């Protein structure tokens, strides 16, 4: 009997011991913070700004630790999703591949989470709502936005006797010619303006907003040949390049500094006016704080469009098969809708805050240069590029055509654009798995 009692007592002790260890482990697990990995495109100075904001979130949320990795692009994100090593939260510098992320389910649909969190679509401006969805799925949210405008060198303007920034394409052309200076051997000394497709931020999608040209009809078919804005922009582009000389321009560009460096052509006065994104304000502040410059909306072909511009921006989402979906959503929600976080990011990166509320946040540091871009963002004619299943290759195909045109390699613009329309429709069909239309 005593032996039986002894065995029972031992079993009870063991059971209690196991329970105690289990409870301790459970407590430890509960208190151990969840590690959230976040991949973003920013690097160097910009990455440190983003990390500062996530550190604030980290501090306020003891249940998670946020691990940020910068310098990421879409190729890396897709490769990681495929390999099953995707981060909990991923961010892309632009929306070109939203059609792929939403269409394939690579990034999860956030619609139900937005609904359960009480975040209506009106939280975000219309253009950003457009470029964060595809095929009825809202798989991304805007994390700040980019828009584009004109940067002009006030000293060079004064020397050339130009009072203020141009507002129309005709004024832009005249001012650019006045500001362009040539060396005795005929080479370019200072360029008034460089609209060359492929130079810095010059891409078709950013340019055609100034002509008010559309991309797609109601059935999502390409209509570039039917939109006079497209051919008018290209004709102007060609005539401007011809005035300078194609080869002369190419040679001049080859000697200009990298866009994202302190040798940027506008920052060092080699280009008097430049088409650029709002982030340049922060770059100039960091690299050439004494540069005497101004910002303005891009000149337009149709006066009613003045004040508008091209909008795109960084997006953020949750890759599929994530292990911490709830925590990831909470962080995404914070970064994309918290006015304080957006204002702080905007102040540091000088990107446009991407909710209606944050656009007027009192926390935004006033800056006359940057204020131009806030106004462009709010302009009702500002627009973005189409989101299609073909991803970035869609706009690249248009850029490819434009570079051939500006080099004089397209003999007939109308038939060239019509052929491009067919090509774009075929690309979308092929990207959806349809093959030849």
């Amino acid at each position, binding site marked *: 009997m005593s032996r039986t009692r002894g065995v029972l007592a031992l079993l009870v002790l063991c059971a209690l011991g196991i329970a105690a260890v289990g409870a301790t482990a459970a407590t430890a697990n509960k208190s151990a913070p969840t590690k959230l990995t976040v991949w973003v495109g920013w690097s160097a100075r910009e990455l440190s700004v983003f990390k500062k904001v996530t550190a604030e979130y980290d501090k306020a949320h003891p249940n998670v630790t946020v691990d940020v990795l910068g*310098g990421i692009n879409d190729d890396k994100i897709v490769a990681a999703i495929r390999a099953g090593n995707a981060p909990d939260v991923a961010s892309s510098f*632009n929306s070109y591949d939203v059609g792929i992320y939403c269409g394939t389910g*690579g990034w999860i649909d956030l619609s139900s989470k937005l609904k359960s969190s009480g975040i209506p679509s009106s939280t975000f401006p219309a253009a950003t709502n457009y470029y964060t969805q595809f095929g009825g799925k809202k798989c991304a949210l805007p994390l700040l936005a980019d828009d584009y405008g004109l940067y002009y060198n006030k000293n060079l303007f004064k020397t050339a006797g130009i009072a203020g920034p141009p507002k129309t394409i005709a004024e832009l052309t005249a001012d650019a010619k006045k500001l362009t200076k040539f060396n005795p051997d005929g080479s370019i000394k200072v360029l008034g303006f460089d609209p060359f497709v492929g130079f810095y931020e010059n891409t078709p999608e950013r340019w055609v907003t100034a002509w008010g040209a559309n991309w797609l009809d109601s059935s999502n078919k390409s209509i570039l040949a039917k939109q006079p804005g497209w051919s008018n922009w290209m004709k102007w582009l060609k005539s401007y390049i011809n005035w300078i000389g194609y080869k002369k321009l190419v040679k001049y560009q080859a000697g200009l500094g990298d866009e*994202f460096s302190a040798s940027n052509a506008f920052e060092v006065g080699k280009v008097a006016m430049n088409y650029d994104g709002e982030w340049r304000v922060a770059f100039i502040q960091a690299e050439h704080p004494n540069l005497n410059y101004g910002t303005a909306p891009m000149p337009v072909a149709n006066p009613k469009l003045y004040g508008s511009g091209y909008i795109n921006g960084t997006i953020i989402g949750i890759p599929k098969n994530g292990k911490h979906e709830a925590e990831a959503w909470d962080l995404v929600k914070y970064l994309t809708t918290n006015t304080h976080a957006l204002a702080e990011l905007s102040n540091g990166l000088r990107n446009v805050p991407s909710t209606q509320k944050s656009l007027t946040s009192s926390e935004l540091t006033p800056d006359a240069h940057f204020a131009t871009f806030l106004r462009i963002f709010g302009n009702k004619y500002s627009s973005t590029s189409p989101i299609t299943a073909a991803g970035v290759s869609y706009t*690249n195909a248009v850029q490819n055509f434009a570079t*051939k045109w500006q080099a004089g*390699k397209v003999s007939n613009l109308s038939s060239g654009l019509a052929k491009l329309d067919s090509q774009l429709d075929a690309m979308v069909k092929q990207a959806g798995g349809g*093959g030849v239309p």
Partner: protein
Amino acid sequence: MSPWLVGFSVFFAYPLVMSAYLSFNHYDLLSSPRWVGLANYRYLFTVDPQVWTTVKNTLWLIAVMVPLQVVFAYGIAMLLARAKSGVGVLRTIFYLPALAPPVAATLGFVFILNPATGPVNTILAHLGIQGPLWFQDPAWSKPSLTLLGLWGVGNTMVIFLAAVLDVPRHLYESAELDGAGPLQRLRWVTLPTTSPVILFAVILGVIQGLQYFTQAYVAAGVASGQASQAGDVTAGTLGYPLDSTLVYPVLLFQHGFTDFQMGYASAMAMLLLAVSFGVISIILINSRRWVHYGGAAR
């Protein structure tokens, strides 16, 4: 199972079979493959406007760059074989570029051939010559890549050097006794004796030409001025300038890893495999007429 069989299955047979299978599927890397039959091949042959551009560029490199590389490497090997002094230093100098990583070498060439700031055009300008736009000009971009290719022929040169030095002396002596001059000795002794090595270099060069990627990819990105953008998409700069450096493997890469159309990229890969097989077969069959193997049997 032998280690060889494991390696063959994992690194060759499986990828080959999967590529063949995926070429008949729509596969975007993120969702499951979906059977589409011959749709990818139809798009490849009848719609994709860039495919024929890449075929032309790739053929240009094979027709111009590969023969030049072989001739240049052979010429250097011949000169080195005849050098009387400083042979070791000269061999090292000519071989050294082959050790440079392709990316670094390409970056260096784009820099020295920069039409505005590069040393080559600066020197030409001092001589009163207006240098070309090199990597910025579609007419000069492939010749620029060819110069890069010639600079890095060290590996082929070393193989040729070994072959040339291996030619039996008595063949030269016999030819000399028959009154053969230097060119005749080259034509009737050196070339036939080293012809198996020349065939090897030609086949290797053609395969490398068909798979030419790194130099074209890097040169386009750097010369376009867009390579330094952190996180930016690179597809817009591929083939710069004006698709002149857009070779077949670069387009394949673009479709597979930038457009995420791996099914279509697999179809392109299968076509490349078939073309490689065909071209190499033609060269091998043709080689029976000009390659001389030592001994009775070929």
